[in-house]
């Protein structure tokens, strides 16, 4: 069994759906940092069958909106002195600005830099967002 030491101080992103770990790793640009980080993939999980985990041995600012978009079921544990001092849940954001593109090729936001659409969540199950400019739906 692969073992990874616990961290004294930092952040553990847990319950990441298997496969999403790498996406989060890339979005947080963890390959570029100088402090220790670990990405564990396909770890056995009672809840998910298998999951990914990211351990970050430092404090960093997390964009919870972006994390919620990638995987709304993750748990974020803040660690101090080897203990979890805070657990944060993320959820699918109700409003999103500028984090993804509108699927509609005729939408002005795909051809004009001034137009940064605000998307409104209209269906949580289907992860369906409505564009503020063209009203069309984008599925994530």
């Amino acid at each position, binding site marked *: 069994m692969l073992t990874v030491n616990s961290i004294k101080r930092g952040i553990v992103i847990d319950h990441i759906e298997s496969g999403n770990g790498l996406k989060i790793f890339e979005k947080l640009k963890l390959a570029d940092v100088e402090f220790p980080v670990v990405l564990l993939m396909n770890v056995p999980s009672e809840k998910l069958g298998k999951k990914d985990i990211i351990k970050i041995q430092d404090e960093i600012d997390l964009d919870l909106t972006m994390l919620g978009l990638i995987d709304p079921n993750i748990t974020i544990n803040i660690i101090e002195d080897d203990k979890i001092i805070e657990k944060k849940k993320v959820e699918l954001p109700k409003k999103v600005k500028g984090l993804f593109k509108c699927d509609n090729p*005729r*939408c002005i936001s795909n051809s004009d830099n001034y137009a940064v659409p605000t998307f409104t969540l209209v269906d949580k199950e289907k992860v369906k967002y409505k564009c503020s*400019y063209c*009203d*069309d*739906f984008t599925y994530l």
Partner: protein
Amino acid sequence: MNLKGKHLIDPNDFTLEELDQIFKVAQDMEKHPKKYSEICKSKILATLFYEPSTRTRLSFESAMLRMGGNILGFADATTSSVSKGESVADTVRVVSGYADIIVMRHPKEGAPLLSSEYSSVPVINGGDGGHQHPTQTLTDLLTIKNLKGKIDDNKVALCGDLKYGRTVHSLIKTLARYKNMSFYLVSPPQLKLPTYIKEFVKNEYNAEIFETSYLEEVINEVDILYMTRIQRERFFNEEDYLKLKNSYILTRDKIKDAKEDMLIMHPLPRVNEIDYSVDDDKRAVYFKQAQYGVYVRMSLMAHLLGVV
């Protein structure tokens, strides 16, 4: 009720009372044109038409000229700075210093909304891609009000290109706000009304919607038949257009058992979807409809400029 300085991007930007006020003044403008002939004497309308539209542009220009105002603008993107890659936001910031009100037609959906975010004067959406055409909707509603006496309690068939037909998108979203409306959507399967509009109309206003590909199934039931053109310019592929272009052709024979007081409407231009023989039928009101468009645009601009 004060509409001065507001934009019209989506017909649902206005309440039904505000729409009614615009219609009332439009009716008065038709009856008493002289009374309004100088109300915009020092005003300038900018027509920013990034794609060609003879009717809408001329209708706006006629409306402003009938109120004593002036016009400037362009009718083709190739003759404007857009050909140099300028953002509409920049264009509008400059033009709002030149004019008192702007009407924009743009092939990209949401362009007029973007413009309204950067303009210091009212922006009117003169049609954006396959999305919305709110002033056509005002025209359509005024036509129904004038010729039916009311907008409520009507069965409306919308026929043709319901996918890319922005006039239909704006119209159904607005008509659904009136009482007891039912909609019959007649289109080829490839050109059905987008789901987001159907969901909006059903969820927000509980409107009844029936879908079919056959006009014959509904033509004798409805109070209003709104025909639209299959629009060649909205297709990415010419072959797809050719397959669908003759889907619905309205002839005298097809309307022989339709209601006596049914209105046959069309936003124009038509190609072949209404046979010329239908033009003489008293139910064919599309040319009258175009004429009402001038009065409703006069009234709209006068309200946004705060001169009525």
